[in-house]
């Protein structure tokens, strides 16, 4: 079929995709190591965590799946490391079915036991929780009655950290950290913890979901990590470098190719012969 499009508008997808893959692969092999400018959202997140004291409890919704692991796992790892540095205790649950199965990979990079963090005393993992927003409300009211065993099936009755979370749980939680690809999860946590109990909250949604959370920042949500870039910025500002910094370079190159093609497409649009439909 004949087309009236300029050739700059008709570059085959195959070439375009190969260029994206090539650019991202190249930068993975030869990182630029550019400085990462830190946004106010990330600085606010860092300040909120820095304000926590030793022994404070952070409730973490590790609500990411395999699809977004590249963005979310570095955020989880750096936050866990920062919390350990501050002596903050962590209670991990997941609003994603896949979340608990992805935790092993993150824990292998953190290695909490080697750093003196004892399971059941300093951190706890209770696995997947179904039920959406009412479940968040139930957890914050009485964590101990909502969960009876941890993810491995060990009764919580033998764990000191679980005992600390007896009703009213919301009085014992110093911060909620939510990682999710879904805006409903992020907003649900804001409604149930930040709005209702005024618990400080930080979130790491995907980049595309950040505008959904922005209206709550910084009143109900003290900090936002802008997806994978936010994790890279957090690694930079906290002095705990990890995998997100590499991701930052990859995003730069992938984005650069997209932008070049966006410009080429528009140049082609204006160069093509006018007339017809």
């Amino acid at each position, binding site marked *: 079929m004949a087309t009236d499009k300029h050739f700059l508008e008709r570059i085959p997808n195959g070439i375009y995709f190969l260029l994206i893959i090539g650019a991202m692969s190249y930068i993975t092999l030869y990182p630029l190591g*550019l400085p990462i400018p830190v946004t106010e959202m990330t600085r606010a997140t860092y300040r909120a965590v820095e304000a926590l004291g030793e022994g404070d409890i952070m409730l973490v919704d590790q609500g990411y799946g395999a699809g977004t692991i590249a963005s979310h796992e570095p955020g989880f790892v750096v936050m866990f490391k920062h919390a350990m540095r501050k002596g903050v205790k962590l209670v991990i649950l997941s609003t994603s079915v896949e979340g608990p199965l992805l935790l092993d990979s993150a824990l292998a990079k953190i290695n909490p036991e080697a750093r003196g963090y004892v399971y059941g005393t300093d951190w706890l993992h209770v696995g997947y929780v179904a039920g959406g927003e009412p479940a968040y409300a139930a957890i914050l*009211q009485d964590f101990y009655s909502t969960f009876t065993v941890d993810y491995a099936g060990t009764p919580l009755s033998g764990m000191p950290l679980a005992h600390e979370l007896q009703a009213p749980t919301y009085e014992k939680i110093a911060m909620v950290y939510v990682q999710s690809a879904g805006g409903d999860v992020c907003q649900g946590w804001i409604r149930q913890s930040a709005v209702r109990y005024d618990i400080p909250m930080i979130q790491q949604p995907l980049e595309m979901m950040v505008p959904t959370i922005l209206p709550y920042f910084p009143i109900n949500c003290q900090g936002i990590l802008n997806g994978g870039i936010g994790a*890279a910025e957090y690694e930079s500002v906290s002095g705990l470098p990890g995998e997100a910094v590499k991701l930052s370079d990859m995003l730069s190159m992938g984005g650069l190719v*997209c932008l070049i093609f966006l410009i080429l497409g528009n140049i082609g649009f204006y160069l093509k012969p006018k007339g017809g439909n």
Partner: protein
Amino acid sequence: MSSSRRMYQRQIPLAITFIVGMIVSFDWFVKWEPLQTLTTTLMNFQIVMVAFMMGFAGVNLVYLHTKRIQRNMSDNKLFDVLLSAILLACLFIWIIVGVGIGQQSDLYKWLFNTFNQSLSATAYAATLFYLASSTYRVLRIRSAETGLLLLVGFITICANIPLFKAWFPILGTILVWISDGLVKYSYRAITIGVGLGGILMGVRTLLAMETGYLGATEE
């Protein structure tokens, strides 16, 4: 509809909705321990119901695809039969391994890491190419409005790329202006509007003026 049937299908569910809704609503405003305990119990009940619904969905999936296999076998659509068979096989393998051996077992983790994680990550990563392709082929400056849209989009993309932000720090300032000045407040207005709509919907549901959640009922 007979009066007894009407009672079971409408009046009792509406009464339960009203009572549960009022308890949970009051708990938001009144800090009274027995009420909090009752609310927590109701919330926990909801968690159990969702878990049950997920199991029910699994049973429904088996029923649906068993029927589909039977129908496609008779229509000689063997590829469709194969797809349904793969789905059912995966479902049963995961249930047997997960319930029988446990989610902590090496086999379950192997299944997850080998199949689920790889496929899920691949499917998500593939959307990048669709997005990139659509950005290239669709976004054109055809009018002043689309020009403005593209300009804002262009700046936002540039400002979200660490490379550009490092080279041109002014981009970060512009992005903050767009986020704080345009996105945050317009989105906040939308959120407040949606919230008011939600409150209205909740009140209508509690007062039995909104009965869509009961499904189709005969009048």
